[in-house]
């Protein structure tokens, strides 16, 4: 190689690969090629392959501006595009290619592993030795191009990883929960701002600097720390471990932490990482709830005791009063049925017999009321012992009708049963359901002076619905809900209208709602009332 060419080649080589950015690198390199070889134009091509088709794409060209009829454009267009793999191999094997466009010489040379280099030169062109001498330089240019590609990919990957890291770092730093890593000895390795705030420190750095032993400084009870570590060592992780903690200013709170144990390559416990949350408000509420529960239980116990007391202390004398009142009336009736009495005595005894009837009736009413109060108290306290089984509402209704027929015997009101024999079974307490039905029929009897009381039942949707329809005095408008409240009675107790204890419907509601059903009232067409309840059918409940 002539010394001049050697020098030129050296200068070109020195200008190659001085940057890791493709554009910058090629700008310097290609410019030096053109200047030193006195070429008019040059381009670097990247060989790309897709779906088995290979083509050369321009990566950098000098000059960039080309007229459509430009010599340079024509030279570029001569580079083959869309070669098969075999065609590409043949083409590359044929390089360097010497050609011409008009009066200009063109040279296409391989850039091994990257693509190709095109140079356009005016006369005199490059000699064969000159072209050969460029092959090692071209190889260096090719390596520089490949390196720039790799560098670009690496930079893109670094950017992606940085974005991911920033995203996760933001999640950690912006988290409202405290996040930490600590050594087995209790020294913080990393904390997020939330953890510092929870413990009352200004910055994570301050927390890490000032706390050398988490167990000693943060745990109010050392035993909690011991339990925590023990659980970690045993299971490798801990979920929602609660403990009382101490803040920087000495105040206390409650913390819930979930953590896992990390191991080193040898499998030894290495460090702990976890998240924690201040649960002081929740804990306070929990403690308040516990206290309220204890108090409620206490009150419930008092209520139970009251119920027991009432059950015994009220019923016992009432039983005596009622019992003897009934005996007294019976005796008076026996006396009145005889002939030994004078008219005056008979009249007095008759009044006494009437009065004793009132005593008995009121005593029975008081007994009923006490029983209802006790029932309701048990129901509300959840102390009722239910006997749930598969029952037939048809059978229950028949029984109820049969039991209450006596209430209708001496009044101009008909009791009508209008229900099928094959109502679907329900899950219920047989006795309580009878109680409800009898209560409704009894109420209807009390508040109906003439007409009928009809018991109807049928399947409606997924439930069996029972209706007690009367032609009685009805319920005043707007009172349909009120009548189910405790101690609500219809009518004025002083005017002689039929009276209730005011608890029957309330008890009935408790019973039906326990069964998963519903009880309600609505006015009957033409006057009167419809009291209805529904209970889910067994197969669907």
């Amino acid at each position, binding site marked *: 190689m002539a010394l001049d060419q050697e020098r*030129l080649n050296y200068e070109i080589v020195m200008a190659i690969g001085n940057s890791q950015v493709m554009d910058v690198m090629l700008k310097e390199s290609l410019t030096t090629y053109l*200047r*030193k070889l006195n070429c008019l134009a040059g381009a670097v091509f990247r060989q790309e392959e897709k779906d088995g088709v290979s083509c050369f794409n321009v990566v950098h060209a000098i000059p960039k501006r080309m007229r459509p009829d430009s010599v340079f454009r024509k030279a570029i267009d001569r580079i083959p595009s869309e070669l098969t793999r075999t065609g590409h191999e043949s083409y590359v094997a044929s390089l360097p290619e010497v050609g011409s466009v008009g009066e200009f010489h063109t040279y296409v040379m391989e850039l091994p592993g990257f693509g190709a280099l095109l140079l356009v030169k*005016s006369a005199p062109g490059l000699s064969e030795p000159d072209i050969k001498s460029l092959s090692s330089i071209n190889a260096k240019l090719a390596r520089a191009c490949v390196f720039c590609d790799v560098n670009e990919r690496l930079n893109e990957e670094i950017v992606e990883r940085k974005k991911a890291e920033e995203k996760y770092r933001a999640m950690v730093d912006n988290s409202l929960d405290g996040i930490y890593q600590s050594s087995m000895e209790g020294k913080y390795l990393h904390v997020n701002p939330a953890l510092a705030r929870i413990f009352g420190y200004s910055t994570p750095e301050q927390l890490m600097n000032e706390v050398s032993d988490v167990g000693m400084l943060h745990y109010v009870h050392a035993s909690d720390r011991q339990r925590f570590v023990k659980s970690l060592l045993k299971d490798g992780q801990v979920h929602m471990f609660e403990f009382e903690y101490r803040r920087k200013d000495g105040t206390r709170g409650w913390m819930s932490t979930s953590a896992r144990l990390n191991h080193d390559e040898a499998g030894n416990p290495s460090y702990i990482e976890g998240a924690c949350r201040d649960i002081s408000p929740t804990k306070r509420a929990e403690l308040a709830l516990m206290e309220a529960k204890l108090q409620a239980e206490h009150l419930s116990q008092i209520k139970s005791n009251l119920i027991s007391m009432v059950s015994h202390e009220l019923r016992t004398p009432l039983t005596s009063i009622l019992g003897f009142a009934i005996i007294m009336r019976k005796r008076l009736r026996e006396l009145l049925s005889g002939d030994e009495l004078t008219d005056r005595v008979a009249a007095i005894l008759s009044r006494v017999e009437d009065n004793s009837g009132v005593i008995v009736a009121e005593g029975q009413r008081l007994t009923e009321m006490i029983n209802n109060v006790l029932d309701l108290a048990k129901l509300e306290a959840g102390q009722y012992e239910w006997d749930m089984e598969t029952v037939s509402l048809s059978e229950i209704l028949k029984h109820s009708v049969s039991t209450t027929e006596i209430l209708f015997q001496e009044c101009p009101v008909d009791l009508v049963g209008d229900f099928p024999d094959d109502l679907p079974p329900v899950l219920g307490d047989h006795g309580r359901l009878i109680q409800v039905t009898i209560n409704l029929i009894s109420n209807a009897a009390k508040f109906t002076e003439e007409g009928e009381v009809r018991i109807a039942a049928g399947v409606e949707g997924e439930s069996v619905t029972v209706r007690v329809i009367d032609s009685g005095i009805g319920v005043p408008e707007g009172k349909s809900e009120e009548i189910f409240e405790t101690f609500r009675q219809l009518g004025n107790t002083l005017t002689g209208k039929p009276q209730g204890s005011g608890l029957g419907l309330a008890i009935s509601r408790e019973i039906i709602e326990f069964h998963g059903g519903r009880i309600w009232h609505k006015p009957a067409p033409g006057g009167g009332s419809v009291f209805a309840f529904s209970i889910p059918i067994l197969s669907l409940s």
Partner: protein
Amino acid sequence: MKVHIDTVGKPESLKLTLDEALADGPVGSLLILACDDNGFSPDTIDPVLTALSVPVFGGVFPYVMSGTDVMRTGCVVIALEHHAEIYTVPGLSDPMTDFEDVLADQVGDEEFKTLMVFLDGFSARIKAFIEALYTTFGLEINYVGGGAGSRSFVKAPCVFTNDGMKVDAAVIAALDMESGVGVRHGWSPISGPYQVTEAEGSKIISLDWSPAYDVYKEVVEEHSGRQLEDQPFLDLSIGYPFGVAKKGSESVVRDPVWLDAERNLVCVGEVPAGEYVDILHGSADDLIASSAQALERAREAFPATAKPGLTLFIDCLSRAYFLKDEYEREVAAAQAPDMPNIGVCTIGEIANNGRDYLEFYNKTTVIAFLEGE
């Protein structure tokens, strides 16, 4: 194409000359070549330039030639029939300026055949600008121009544009006008090659890892028989430029014009580290013969289908300094008969005839035949 001469060299006289040129037939654009000794400044000249209604370009140069007359004061105004598309590039020394971007923002799809470029010859990134110029405009046009500035080597506003007189800037006039360009310098290597092992921009620090000044001094003193330090540096260095090898063409000359405080050689134009340079020398006859050769090359390069209207002679100031009294012969050798001959002494030359890579030359003669009536 008409030439108008202002021999006075004052802003008022320039204005009169411009008015005369504009009144004298259709004018597409104006080229103004002004002498350094006029003492023009933006304060005095901007009102004249900004008032012009046609594109204007040009600058301030150490000397301006009208025929064989070398003017030290005054201006030459060339009224071109062709409209010039003017592009200006500021910040030629700013390391952050991306010249390709600046040009891309201005250049459209216009077609032209000749690019005339005048720039501040003391800017620091002329090489980068020239590369951007070539990358942007391509190879199928002719480039001709040079570096404007003062022969005092003090950097000052020296480039003319429609926005006024600019420093550290370039003005480019793109003309759809035929031209033929010839470039020769006539210098020959006397020693070398030396590798530029350390350099900073236009400053050569070491050659073959020896202080550049020491290497240069040894060669120059041996060849000239004189001591470099017995006179101002430029007095002797003027005859001993560096030459950067270029394949199939004369080497590109780099003129060392002064020493900096560390006694590094400062040239006109960059000399990148890694390049090989020779130390050149030439005789007056060699240089003058090269000017005549440049004229012939320009004539050969001018299309036969067009008619030349003027020659533009762009000659390096340092050739004038070197040739001294012989400079008249150089100027005479560059004259083409039967047409106006206009010239400037420049600080660096720009030329390309569509056959070579575009370069910023030193100590070189560039002659362009320009199409006109």
